């Protein structure tokens, strides 16, 4: 009875995430609100997480396709020099705004740069911004969340209040402040996005920890005198993994979308290099004359984000105990 009170309250405070461009992390959806004490979760040793993870794709074609799409994107962007037909920053004014053709599949921008090549290189930035700040912010969030949840008391209060503040601060504005202070660039986006996202993770992890703390195996471990940090690492962290994986698949597309918003505000990728967000922004005035060069990068973002979201859904359906088949 005691445990339920603690886990119910924090579960509510869904991440109020940036209003625009970023998915609301449906924590409510993945948090057991009425916690039917699912027996399964208790028995489940953490290795099962991975087995479950792979079993997702056996039956879910959409998830499989999404995964393939994502891998394809990563391969193409990482191996950009191999796949890009042209140098993405080499200009050829004679080709300015060339329509799609055999030589330039997606046409050329105003400076005659091959749009396909620019997209392949630009994807690197979009993907990096999707992946790295997410990993960093989630690591910070997990560490702080576990600390808060496990230690409780004043530490918990302090961390959670800081999290409240971070989540309430307008994130795009924060990115602008950081960018104006240290100059725009990858580091800026990285810092800004990390700062915004850790709080959401910390919240969820904390509430997860609060519920896990009351579990029998944790109590058992505590009673036989296992050290606190060992419990955290051995028992609590692994059991948070499903939640974390679901959050990861939510944050990555969120960050990719945020990058496009940052580009709109002029603090995204730095020319002459580009990102999809910047490409859309820079080519918007050619919608009439050469729509391909505006539409292509937008569609690239859309497909990637949809793929991540589908993957996230599939993972959640599989890992969220509340949605398990009975």
């Amino acid at each position, binding site marked *: 009875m005691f445990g339920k009170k603690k886990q119910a309250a924090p579960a509510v405070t869904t991440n109020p995430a940036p209003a625009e461009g970023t998915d609301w992390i449906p924590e409510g959806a993945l948090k057991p609100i009425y916690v039917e004490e699912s027996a399964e979760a208790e028995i489940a040793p953490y290795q099962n997480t991975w087995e479950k993870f792979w079993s997702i794709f056996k039956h879910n074609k959409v998830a499989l396709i999404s995964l393939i799409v994502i891998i394809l994107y990563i391969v193409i962007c990482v191996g950009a020099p191999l796949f890009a037909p042209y140098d993405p920053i080499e200009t050829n004014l004679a080709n*300015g705004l060339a329509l799609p053709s055999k030589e330039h599949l997606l046409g050329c921008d105003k400076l005659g740069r091959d749009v396909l090549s620019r997209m392949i290189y630009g994807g690197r930035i979009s993907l990096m911004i999707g992946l790295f700040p997410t990993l960093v912010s989630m690591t910070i969030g997990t560490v702080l969340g576990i600390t808060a949840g496990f230690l409780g008391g004043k530490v918990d209060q302090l961390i959670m209040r800081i999290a409240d503040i971070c989540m309430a601060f307008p994130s795009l504005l924060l990115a602008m402040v950081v960018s104006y202070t240290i100059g*725009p660039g990858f580091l800026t986006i990285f810092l800004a996005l990390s700062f915004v996202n850790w709080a959401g993770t910390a919240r969820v992890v904390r509430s997860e920890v609060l519920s896990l703390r009351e579990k029998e195996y944790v109590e058992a471990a505590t009673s036989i005198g296992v050290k606190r940090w060992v419990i955290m690492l051995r028992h609590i962290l692994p059991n948070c993994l499903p939640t974390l994986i679901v959050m990861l698949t939510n944050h990555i597309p969120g960050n990719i979308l945020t990058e496009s918003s940052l580009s709109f505000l002029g603090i995204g990728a730095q020319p*002459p290099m580009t990102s999809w967000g910047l490409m859309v922004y820079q080519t918007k*005035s050619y919608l009439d004359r050469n729509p391909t060069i505006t539409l292509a990068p937008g569609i690239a973002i859309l497909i990637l984000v949809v793929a991540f979201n589908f993957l996230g859904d599939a993972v959640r359906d599989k890992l969220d105990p509340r949605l398990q088949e009975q």
Partner: protein
Amino acid sequence: MKKLLAILLALALVFSMAACSSGGGGGEQPAPADGGEGEGGETAAVVYEDGFPENVLRITYQAEPESADPACTTADYILMMNCMDTLVRTETNAAGENVTVPSVAESWSVSDDGLTYSFHLRDDVKFHNGEMLTSDDVLYTVDRMLQPERAGRNSGWMDMIKGGADMLDGKIDTLEGVGIIINGDYDLDIILDAPYAPFLACLSTPAWSLCNREAGDRADEAGGGPLTSLYGSDPEYFCGSGPFMLDEWVLNDHVFLKTNPDYWRGANSMEGILIRIIPDPQTEKMLFDAGQLDIFDLDHALDQIPVYRDDPAYANNLNVKTVLGTSYLSINENIEPFNDVRVRKAFQLAIDRQTLIDTQYYGAATPAGTFLAPGVPGYDPDLGAIPYDPEQAKALLAEAGYPDGFDMEIVQTTDASTSDIEVNDAIASYLEAVGIHVTIKQMDSASWYDLRGTGESPTYRTSWTADFNDPDNFLYEMYGGSGNKRRSWNYYNEDVIKRLTDARYIVDEDERTAEYVWLDNQITREDAAMNVLWHKQKIRVLQSRVKGFVPMWAGYGDSGYYETSLELGN
């Protein structure tokens, strides 16, 4: 089959709900379209979504105008140019020369020593509040700008008046009897500290827009002091004597200027001017095409130039005005290797100006070879544009000890337009071709202004447009006084800088012009202190109903619309 039905039902549900929400919303307020109905008659092609009558000129502004108070802005002059008057005006005459003509000041004379300017004012100029404009208002205009508590932004246009510096320091309260002598309601003398040849031209700038004392005091009081005066922001307190009156100001949406029926030059035939705040040029284009705007400044959207030029419906409605100014890349001589004149010359020779103009500006510019723009006294047409010669550029670099080129940075601000970014990228690739490796350094403009002020900014690209038609306004602004460091030139030729300062006081016109020809050549060509690029044209596309529009003489974005009228009913 059943499934299909279910899908259709669901979709119908969703759409009907969406329709409900929009329909419900639309019903609560009358549709905006009604506004245009009354006058348009049955042939009115355009229904104005803004709700203003047809006989209103619709223009845009990219951001909220800062203020209508000359003490409060140095950038957004549109309100002053339409709602206020100056002592004299600059006009482009039939021969294409920019000349100073009488305005509120009917006539004037200058003393032989160049220190005393005596003006005789018209006696029929009436402020919007009904008061007559007198010498005292001119005195007030100067006094309020120089009053320390007001922190007047345009005090730089007046501090050359005798006693001006003292007043800014708070040593005296008024210039009356010191730098301004009132000789009656419509006569006054302005006395300068030292002779300053361009003073009369200065008087035509919007900084010298004449304010009304009574309205000014009222606005100060209402706003709680001179610093927070409501003069320039609240239509109720604003008062000018110009052809239009500030009537309505809806923040972030529009400013409406109503025609002044009592204007001393005769009332304009339009009912007023609607200035819509539209930050996004793409939106501006869509509004223009939909007939919701009358004038579209293509400077905001260069890529639309060919669209309108090739469109028979608009091809004859383009208004082309050569801007009295020059675009350039700055050179910071403190940054190696730009301390070497050969490198600077190579930097100039490496850029193909004509091709850039053709491809990026669709021909709407002419290549530059001097900083002084054609039309400014001291401009030397014989110098011609700087040629494009990559081979010689490479040779010069090799001679200077950089056979493999070098690395440099070009600063670009985050608010740069897409076409600015593209031009920079194109310039970078030309430089790359001669071995100069460019990194584009993006900074937000506030941070960059700070950096530039310390004299340490790397190369940046911008343009200078004349405030008044005098070479002093070009060259001295750049290299004289604090400008040299503040604009990050660090130009070392002390001899030239000294001659630049002395040239301000030359009274003989021919001698002065000859001196500026020499100075311009020395600075931009011999010393290659600046990489001049082109003199731009400002192209506006007008709806066919717009008649008589005269762009501002120097080609600014802000113009007065007094000469403009609208052809109604089609």
